[in-house]
């Protein structure tokens, strides 16, 4: 299986879950709507990429043991603070854009075509992040959140795409030991809790729940 695409799909699934955790409790109604819509798009992207990789997207999304997920630690974090949540959205969209743009040039037309479609949709997520970044970038609390999450954001991308991300967000790449445990391939403790919740229905009705 294509590890790069599986990592992308797992990132989109997990960040979609994390974003949806703000539904109903975001600090303002507009953000309830925005986070719900973004979450829905991200999970839609995950489904489309899983469908490139396997016949049954649900099986790939929910039937794997925890250690087979390829998501990056950045998307796994359960963030309860708005500054961190917005910092993650901004950093994630900047990182995601770099790999999606690379996939738009993929030799496989199915991959390139899907990447082009995802890019058009992600443009709206980037605008949302851009608006918030503009509003908060000089706030100390937001700057601290960006500093906390920056090593995790680098961990979304393979080493050869990290310089591009650093240039785009005007931040320095830290030393390797700072990245330890924050790169794809490691998992945070928060993922286990999310996995447990995310797969509950599927595990209770392995043949597929009927509504």
């Amino acid at each position: 299986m294509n590890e790069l695409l599986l990592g992308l799909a797992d990132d989109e699934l997990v960040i979609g879950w994390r974003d949806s955790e703000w539904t109903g409790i975001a600090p303002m109604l507009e953000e309830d709507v925005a986070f719900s819509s973004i979450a829905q798009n991200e999970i839609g992207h995950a489904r489309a990429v899983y469908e490139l990789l396997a016949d049954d997207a649900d099986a790939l999304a929910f039937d794997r043991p925890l250690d087979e997920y390829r998501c990056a630690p950045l998307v796994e974090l359960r963030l309860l603070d708005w500054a961190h949540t917005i910092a993650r959205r901004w950093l994630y969209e900047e990182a995601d854009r770099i790999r999606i743009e690379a996939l738009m040039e993929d030799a496989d037309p199915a991959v390139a075509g899907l990447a082009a479609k995802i890019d058009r949709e992600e443009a709206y997520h980037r605008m949302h992040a851009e608006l918030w970044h503009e509003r908060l970038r000089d706030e100390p609390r937001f700057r601290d959140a960006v500093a906390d999450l920056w090593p995790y954001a680098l961990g979304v991308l393979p080493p050869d795409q990290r310089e591009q991300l650093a240039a785009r967000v005007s931040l320095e790449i830290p030393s390797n030991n700072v990245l330890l445990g924050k790169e794809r391939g490691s998992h945070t403790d928060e993922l286990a809790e999310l996995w447990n919740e995310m797969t509950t229905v599927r595990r209770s009705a392995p043949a597929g729940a009927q509504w």
Partner: protein
Amino acid sequence: MTDMSRSARRSAGPRSPVTESAVWAAFEEIPDPEIPVVSLVELGVIRSVDVQDGHVRVEFTPTFLGCPALEVMKRALEEKVAALGAEPEVQVIADDSWSTDKITAAGLEKLRAAGFAPPAPREASAPRLVQLQSNVFRCPYCGSTQTRLENIFGPTPCRSLRYCESCRQPFEQFKTL
């Protein structure tokens, strides 16, 4: 005439083969599940219809990938083909071939009449914030261009929220995709 009576009449007499135009005509009767003022044909999501020996292959392009109405639309297409007495094969094409530019002129007018501002034409690059913040978007109620972006996101992935400064009415803007 209902679908039932049409298919009943078809199967009663000597069966005439299903034609592409009959399939397109049937698809024109399927409303968009979330914005039922436009049909799936007007929405431009049916990329092609290919009829061969009673087998109808349809290429269907989703609007937004996370659209929850995707399965409903696919099933509606299959049911229409089956009602014509043919065997459906609906293939979902997840690439960049659908854009809001595919919405027909009649579809755009119906959207406007229902209070949705139609999308701006697609540009070569993906949409940017500066375009959404510009005031080229016309209020579907009073026609004023004195409108501002309220929220990039709305009740479904394909819509944004805007506010008209002239008639003081919020309205939904179809996103350019």
